């Protein structure tokens, strides 16, 4: 039965991939550095591997969804990210779409 598990895991990974960005955007109204974001998301049940999150943060910054700033006042220099105005607008629309999507998928599930 490992076959079923394998297929489920593969599909689940694909489903998760799409939700990571909305999850990241949701937590960045206040500035966070990469690892603190990993912890926050983990606490709320979303597991994301730092090796995936760090490159993603840079990509979202490049797309203008996030702003970043280095904080060198503490012992360890850290790069803090937060949602830009543009990113907030994008996030808002994504939320609406997500709820819509969620509703229609639930509707589909009920039928079967």
């Amino acid at each position: 039965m490992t076959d079923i598990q394998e297929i489920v895991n593969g599909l689940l990974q694909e489903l998760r991939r799409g939700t990571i960005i909305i999850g990241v955007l949701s937590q960045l109204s206040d500035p966070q550095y990469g690892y603190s974001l990993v912890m926050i998301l983990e606490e709320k049940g979303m597991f994301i591997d730092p090796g995936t999150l760090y490159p993603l943060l840079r990509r979202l910054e490049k797309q203008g969804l996030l702003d970043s700033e280095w904080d060198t006042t503490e012992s360890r220099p850290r790069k803090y990210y937060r949602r830009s105005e543009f990113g907030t607008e994008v996030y808002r629309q994504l939320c609406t779409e997500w709820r819509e999507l969620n509703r229609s998928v639930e509707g589909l599930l009920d039928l079967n």
Partner: protein
Amino acid sequence: MDIVQRYIYAVTQKLPEGQREDIRLELQGLIEDMLDERTQGEPATAYDIEAVLRELGSPQELADKYRPRPRYLIGPAFFEVYISILRIVMISIVIGITVSFGVQALINPAEMLQHFINYIISMMTTGVQGFAWVTVAFAIIEYAGVRPKNKNKREWSLADLPEIPDRRLLIKRSEPIVGIIFSVLFAVLFTFSVELIGVIVFRENLREVVPIFNVENFARYLPLIWGLTALSILKESVKMIFRKWTRGVMLFHVAFNAATFILLVIMFKDSAVWNPYFIEQLVQLSILTPGSEAFEWVESIWNSGGNWFIAIVAIVTVIDIVTVCLKVYPIHKGAVENIRNH
């Protein structure tokens, strides 16, 4: 912590230079945070460090995630054609140099060893040149984003659908192959054996060549010839990628041939490239007798310099351009009218 630095280095060295420092600092902080989380303030052991780095995954994969999109010198879209063109060019080079070696060995068998050494050296240097030029040509094609299929992001319209190519417009695979073989053969011939182009005399114990060109002066034009060869490989590669005469391929073909013609005119109009003693040498070998009808005839042709040659090249070029235009233009026009009539 040495191993951590090595890990970070392995990731960042594969990334664009401008981002390296920033990513290095960020990864450094991340790994320290992960270690702290793991040891809860205790000093980290080698075992902890290994566990954390394993969690981050292989440096290659991490670097791949940082890279926005794969970059290619020659991407998968052109790689197949690149390999086949490369093969054709290499084969042509081998044939060309072997032929020139054969002729030299025939004319001057005494210096066989020297010919053979030259043969090997030419093979190496020309092989490298050929490889480089083909690669450069394809890098240009890749960079210029030539695509057989239009992958523009703008909305597509029905008119963008490629016409099912008219059979008459298909370019046979052999056509670019022959084109490349000939241009490489010419380049090899002009580079290594320009002194062999001329009147070859075989008589009893006499084996002589009266060259048409002045070998030393001709050498100045070699870079031009190599450039032309590279351009010609580029042109044939474009044909091989598209496999049919489109308006773009036609324009490229015509422009290339016109450019070749102009460069040849510049070269052959320069009287220094011709062998100044051509007639005298022919007389010395008693091929021509001064005063005879043949002598007058050869001399008059020779004295008009490159004009004859240019005239012939001009006629060939014009015929080629006209044939291609006549072939491509009416069919394309017809196709467009067909669509309108429907």
